[in-house]
């Protein structure tokens, strides 16, 4: 289940700009994937699978989102102006700074949800 759900969550994330979906929902789905994994295999196993503690995701995601916010300033435009590559990429489609912002949101959401849930579940044990 885990790979399929993760793939699905990425799909949701990427299609967000055109169809229902986006970083927030995508992140939640990815989090659910890991939670289901931890239900079957135990929290410790999931933590091993992740290699890093989920709390480490939070700063990474925040950093990506913040960078994508301030990136336009480098080319002399106001904060949060959408920047876009002119040529579409294969499969993914157009890539813009909004996508990176959404990826940041995605990672933060995964990090937050897993941190809270795993901490509580470890506490319960």
């Amino acid at each position, binding site marked *: 289940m885990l790979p399929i759900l993760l793939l699905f969550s990425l799909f949701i994330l990427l299609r967000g700009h055109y169809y229902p979906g986006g970083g927030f929902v995508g992140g939640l789905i990815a989090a659910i994937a890991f939670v289901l994994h931890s239900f079957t295999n135990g929290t410790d196993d999931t933590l091993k699978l992740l290699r890093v503690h989920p709390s480490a995701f939070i700063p990474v995601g925040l950093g990506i989102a913040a960078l994508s916010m301030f990136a336009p300033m480098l080319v002399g435009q106001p904060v949060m102006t959408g920047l876009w590559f002119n040529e579409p990429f294969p499969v993914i489609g157009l890539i813009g700074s909004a996508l990176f912002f959404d990826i940041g949101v995605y990672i933060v959401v995964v990090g*937050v949800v897993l941190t809270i849930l795993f901490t*509580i579940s470890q506490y319960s044990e």
Partner: protein
Amino acid sequence: MLFAILAGFIVSLLYIPFGRFLKGRLAVLASLLPIGLFTYFAAFIPDIQDGASIAFHQPWVPSLGINFDFQLDGLSLLFSLLITGIGSLVFLYAAAYLKGHPYLDRFYAYLSLFMAAMLGVVLADNVLLLFIFWELTSISSFFLIGFNNDNADSRKSALVALGVTGGGGFLLMAGLILMGHLSGSYSIQEMIATNEYLKGHALYGLILLLVFVGAFTKSAQFPFHFWLPGAMKAPTPISAYLHSATMVKAGVYLLARLYPVLGGTDYWTYPLIIIGGITMLYGAFHSIFRTDLKGILAYSTISALGILVFLIGIGTPQSLLAAAVFILVHALYKAALFLTTGVIDHETGTRDVTQLSGLRKVLFPLAIAGLLAALSSAGLPFTFGFIGKDLVYEATLHTDGILPLVLTGLAVVTNIFLLYAGLLAGLKPFAGRLPERYSAIHLPHALMWAPPLLLAILGIAFGAFPALADASLLNPAATAMINEAIDSPLKIWHGFNTVLLLSGITLALGVALYLARKPSAHGLAWIERFNPLSPKHLIASLTRAVHRFAIRYTRTLHNGFLRVYLLRIIIFAVLLLAFRLFSGGAIRLIPDQLSPVGIYEIAVVGILVAAIYLAVTSTSRLTAVVATSVIGYGMCLLFVFYSAPDLAMTQFTIDTLTVVLFVLVLFRLPSFLNLANRGTRIRDWLVASAFGAVIALIGIQVLNQPIDDTISKFYGDNAYVLAKGKNVVNVILVDFRGFDTMFEIVVLSIAAIGVFSLLKLRLKASEKE
């Protein structure tokens, strides 16, 4: 100029990584900063003397009127030189005084921070900028008073000082904003241009009140003076620097600076004369009963600050010149006396003036410093204090009406007491026979006796040759206050006149008092009998009352029961919404506008109702949780029906996670108990129904409003054009309202950190057991 002010902040930051290298012998290097700044400001003397003023402008938040506007004129220069000059000596002195102290780096960091903030106060031309620096001085003063942080008294005094000055600062901010708002500019120079309008405005009185309270709390005026004696818990160099020579004069500076804007009216003059008069007499009277050297100096400082406020209140050119002179006089002799006291304390271990005598035999250079400073404070001829005192009398004599008699009388009495206090602090410890137990004392390092000696000598030099400081410093300072040139050079000898007579009387009576009265613990005990009536005591009991009220208030409103919070929030929201709803007109339901109800909707609503019933009546937690999640999924279906797929997806995943969360914590809970009795159940039922009803009514009412679709139309039209997205909801989230989303994920992260740390803490604690 910006760099000169920021240098202190930068240096104090540098102490964080490099502080431990500067703790040892290199500590003296710290004084390079104030010495450098002193030279920098001293280089401006010729320009300022010619009547120029140097302005510096750098936009910061122009939309709010906050800019880095600095203005260096005579008044600012006088203060800048005092701050950096006495700062240099204090930095040097402290290197020896606190030698080997484990927190020496911290000490210098605070001190640099303070110096930069104080320079900012006296140089800022923008009142909001001034206020920011003003608060920074309060904060650095807090850290420095509480420097001996293992001493409960120090901590308490630091808090009292911060409370008083911070409270005053709060009112000051209101006053300054009011001023800026009325005059349309936050720049003091521009306010001077519109001062007639300000003085005539109905809110003029309020502005004065707010500014006065701010200045009085900072400059320790009656009845806010009590924090200053407490602040003497700080190491002595700090007392000399912050609580005598510079920071406490910030209030005086503010009054002097705002004199051209607000001053000259009766509302300005009388409160300042009255409060300043009370303070100078009160402080001087109290100082003669103290036996602790620093206590004596603290109360005489309060008195000197009172004199300054008093002089600014009188507001004649003579009195403002007198104020400028007295600022310098007082800073020189009082800092010298404080530093001398510091050495005495350091070497003998006591500051009790009844115990000390004959120290001139072992601490000779200090005895000279103490004597010279005491003479200057006594106002003996050929000292700078003499000129200062003369000018004060001159100023009080040249007022109108019956005031001269009263004011001069006040000034004479105050000066007699101050003279006594000065002799007590500067002469008494060194005079007489040296007790056996002090005979082994050696003269400390030159860094400790040279600074007070230098200050004391300067006090004499400026007195003997007043031209040294007159045209270069003091005249421009007074000129800056009244905006017109003052043509009265300082002189030692004015001929035989009333002023000389008054000086003679002061001197004679003061010396007589010194010879006749010996300080004793008895006198201290006598004056302390009046403590219950003192402002300090009254305000302390007020604070305790507020504290008790806060405890009671918190226990009632924030009792820690989540359900009580929820209940209150919901009731409040219901009342608020209901009020708005019913005051907005009739509620109508127009059936035609409703979309037809299909079989799916009816089925979903039926499921919802059943789930709600189950959730409320179930006696098993698990059943209730499952039922609530059914409600959530039902809602998702409704969202899908009414074309809100984004919302539905999010709700769906959130619900799933909520169930997971519930299941995780469920089995930690004790088995199900029905704690709620019938009464609370009915109450909860009522509240819930009311909430639902209000929301439903709002929903109906929304339908009746003509739909304003400009916003959704804007997003719909622009989503693809501006942000290249076809999903409007997502485009709003990541592009148009991207800042909101950014802050939301930050909040999420904070929540995660909160849960994580709270539970980890508990885990660790339970692991220990």
